[in-house]
């Protein structure tokens, strides 16, 4: 039995047709219904369908079908995604293991300084014979066959610094940024180039490939603004530029996870802004990144994605979620190039359904186009 037999079909003419029109709104100024809610649902979709976090990551086709199915329940996006934060590292030699309650995690660092000196980007041919590309080809083949109305081919650079750091150990990497900056750059550049090659393989197959790239480890809890610019923002710009040159894009989702209290200022000039991009910033210090600041800084180049704190999503208090969603919507809803309401990161696996409903209710109450 295939996973598709576990799920009723989506309501295509009702829910999906409406959600698809709404989804297009912020990108093409064809305003429909209300501001979209994208809580970045991953393993929460599997949990909501009765499966486990491990199931979500170990069985990607099941995981993405859960995302496509559960999105209808909460009237979320009409498109599907499935990912974890460490694409391409297995091709660079790392071993990942599946956990019951976590995404796949590395078994440990695999490189020292000599190893990084000799490290080379993985070429397209080797990527095609690796694990990440076959995983995503199989996944999108499944979606094409069973959920074609939700298909968006995506290539993940994801956390360019964080994934690179795992190869030598995160603490060691942070030290290297001070003591061995050239080696730290070599490590990240190798991962970036590998990710670019991967995006090209995806674009070769599908004709285009949305890009998701972020700055997660590189944030103000750990690095100065200058270090975030040198090790993350500039690399993200290079990644997107090179991916565009090779046919990937034009859609880009920039995900700045964690605390970007002051380093948010280094991204605008270093990133590439296409006609279809979204910028999401998680936190400013301990608080969610303010939507009014996100709007004022970035609305001239991108669709902005505001946040409800992920911590609230597991707190049994939907009213609090509703209030924070309202605050974000009122501050950001008139962004020049569109606004989306999200969580400050992936919605937690055990997010309370009432809290997701609270976000959507707030979007209906304060994000309906034509009411402000």
């Amino acid at each position, binding site marked *: 039995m295939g996973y598709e037999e576990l799920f009723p079909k989506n309501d295509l003419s009702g829910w999906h047709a409406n959600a698809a029109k709404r989804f297009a709104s912020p990108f*093409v100024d*064809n305003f429909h219904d209300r501001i979209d809610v994208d809580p970045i649902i991953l393993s929460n979709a599997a949990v909501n369908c009765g499966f486990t976090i491990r199931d979500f990551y170990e069985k990607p086709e099941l995981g993405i079908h859960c995302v496509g199915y559960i999105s209808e329940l909460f009237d979320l996006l009409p498109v599907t995604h499935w990912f974890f934060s460490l694409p391409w590292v297995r091709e660079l030699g790392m071993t990942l293991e599946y956990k019951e309650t976590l995404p796949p995690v590395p078994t440990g660092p695999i490189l020292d300084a000599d190893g990084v000196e000799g490290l080379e980007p993985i070429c397209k041919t080797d990527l095609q014979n690796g694990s990440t590309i076959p995983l995503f080809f199989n996944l999108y083949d499944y979606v094409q066959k069973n959920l074609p109305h939700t298909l968006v081919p995506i290539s993940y650079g994801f956390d360019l610094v964080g994934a690179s750091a795992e190869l030598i150990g995160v603490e060691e990497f942070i030290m290297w940024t001070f003591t061995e900056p050239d080696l730290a750059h070599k490590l990240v550049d190798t991962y970036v180039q590998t990710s670019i090659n991967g995006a090209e393989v995806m674009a070769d197959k599908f004709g285009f490939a949305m890009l998701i790239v972020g700055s997660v480890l590189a944030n103000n809890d750990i690095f100065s603004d200058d270090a975030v610019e040198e090790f993350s923002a500039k690399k993200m710009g290079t990644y997107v530029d090179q991916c565009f040159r090779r046919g990937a*894009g*034009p859609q880009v989702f920039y995900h700045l996870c964690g605390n970007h209290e002051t380093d948010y200022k280094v991204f605008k*000039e270093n990133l590439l*802004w296409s006609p279809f991009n979204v910028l999401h910033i998680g936190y400013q210090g301990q608080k969610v990144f303010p939507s009014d600041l996100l709007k004022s800084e970035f609305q*001239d*180049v991108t669709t902005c994605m505001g946040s409800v704190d992920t911590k609230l999503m597991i707190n049994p208090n939907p009213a609090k979620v509703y209030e924070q969603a309202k605050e974000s919507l009122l501050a950001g809803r008139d962004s020049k190039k569109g606004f989306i309401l999200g969580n400050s990161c992936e919605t937690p696996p055990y997010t309370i359904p009432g809290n997701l409903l609270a976000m959507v209710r707030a979007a209906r109450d304060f994000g309906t186009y034509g009411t402000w």
Partner: protein
Amino acid sequence: MEIIISDEVKAGIEGKALKVDEIKALINGAEASKDKITNGSKFLAKKKLGDVTVYADYSEEGGALKVNSVYAHKMILQDIVMDTADTEWTYVKTGAKIRKGHTNLSFMGATRSAPSLVDPASGESWLEEYLAAKTIAVAEMLFSQKRA
């Protein structure tokens, strides 16, 4: 000056529903007005022809002008959003250094930005071939689908 266009480039021009004579006129106009940018080894000139902005990428070779490629986009160049760094390009008309930047593009009623080469003084922008032929071409297709 003679303009040389290979059969391959001619096929590309005709594939875009453009005429070879239109490209020759574009280049002759750019040569006369100096409304072109150069990186020292080649020139880039643009002109709006109907609903599309057409670019000719050409070089001077042995007393003739050789057309390297021709490309076009439907999205309409608007104002410069920002400029961030110098490039190897120079605006022949004014001698100004061309900057790396972003420009607003309008299409089907929406305005969105894209990476570009810009001259802040004149407000002129140019899209490089890889962007026009890949990123912007797909964006135009997505706009058409999503606006439908």
